[in-house]
């Protein structure tokens, strides 16, 4: 194994650069180092001006999403040795405005997420004295996969529809809505419906499937979206044919 590997990192300094410029750094090629470790080494030892987001270093916080050799990845979950002998191209997460270097503006997602009401909604809240809401393991399985989302936004980066139309509500938001729609404790599916079935909701999705391929947690947002398309379409047809039936 070679001693070092080259990281080509996108640098963007607002007001100075018109567009990102690639800068090369030599970092030690250690067997257990992730891309994030390489970036940390750069910042500590080589170039303190490099900016990037990170937090948990273990693939659970969703902070360190970047484009590595053209693919959306968590920089803490991809290893230098996977790309040896390199060079490794590290760019900011695609489809988001770049604030500086590898830091992107995620306000779009942060604004969209609350619109799908990602929390348990009850028609009537049970009083605390009534005890916990009970749920069988089967009922948990119905939505568990969609609860694994870290909000890392790799799916938005992979989605061609989102790249063309930033109004598209996006894979993670819909998957998170489904996490609650399919939760046996939740009674709020009707409240989420308008946002999800708007033209920039599920109907803009063409099941490319790249979101699910990019997801580091196996959430399968594409599957969540397709299932909801069927649910919403079936409901619309029922309402058309039997308008008086109370949902």
């Amino acid at each position, binding site marked *: 194994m070679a001693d070092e590997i080259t990281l080509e990192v996108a640098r963007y300094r607002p*007001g100075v650069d018109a567009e990102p410029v690639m800068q090369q750094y030599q970092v030690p090629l250690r067997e257990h180092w992730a891309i994030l470790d390489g970036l940390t080494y750069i910042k500590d030892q080589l170039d303190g001006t490099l900016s990037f987001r990170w937090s948990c270093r273990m693939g659970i916080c969703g902070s360190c999403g970047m484009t590595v050799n053209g693919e959306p990845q968590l920089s803490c979950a991809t290893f230098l040795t996977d790309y040896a002998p390199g060079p490794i191209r590290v760019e900011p997460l695609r*489809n988001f*405005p770049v604030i500086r270097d590898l830091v992107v503006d995620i306000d779009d997602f942060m604004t969209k997420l609350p619109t799908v009401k990602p929390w348990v909604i009850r028609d009537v809240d049970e009083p605390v004295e009534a005890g916990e809401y009970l749920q069988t393991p089967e009922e948990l399985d119905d939505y568990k996969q969609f609860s694994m989302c870290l909000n890392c936004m790799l799916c938005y980066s992979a989605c061609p529809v989102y790249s063309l139309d930033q109004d598209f509500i996006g894979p993670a938001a819909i998957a998170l809505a489904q996490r609650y729609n399919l939760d046996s404790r939740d009674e709020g599916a009707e409240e989420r419906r308008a946002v999800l079935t708007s033209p920039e909701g599920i109907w803009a999705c063409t099941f*490319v499937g790249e979101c699910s*391929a990019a997801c580091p947690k196996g959430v399968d947002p594409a599957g969540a979206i*397709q*299932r909801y398309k069927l649910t919403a379409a079936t409901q619309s047809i029922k309402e058309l044919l039997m308008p008086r039936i109370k949902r």
Partner: protein
Amino acid sequence: MSVYQRPVKLFWWLEKRSYVIFVLRELSSVFIAWFVVFLLLLVNAIGDGAASYQTFVDWSGQWWVVAINVIAFLFVLLHTVTWFALAPRAMVIKMRGTRVPAQGVVAAHYLAWFVLSAVVAWVVLR
């Protein structure tokens, strides 16, 4: 403070293999529409009698029509294969409380396809 927005190329889908396959899959719909046109021409030919049907068969036997139909057939197969592969993601079927595994759903589709094709072939060729 100026943010940077990476522009999207016109042919963005040429940049990645999975995107290319996706666009080919989407283009298969054009060949599905071509099949409908071809089918209606065939129906018209059959309805006009044996001579007109023979003329149609001769026309569709020309090398360029066969070429179009071979290409169309490949695209239609792409449609079927990708459709069946994605079917389990869109429908979650439960039998006796447990989810039917994805392979089961796919296998059921292929079985239906095989049976239906056999029935059609038998009806046409007997």
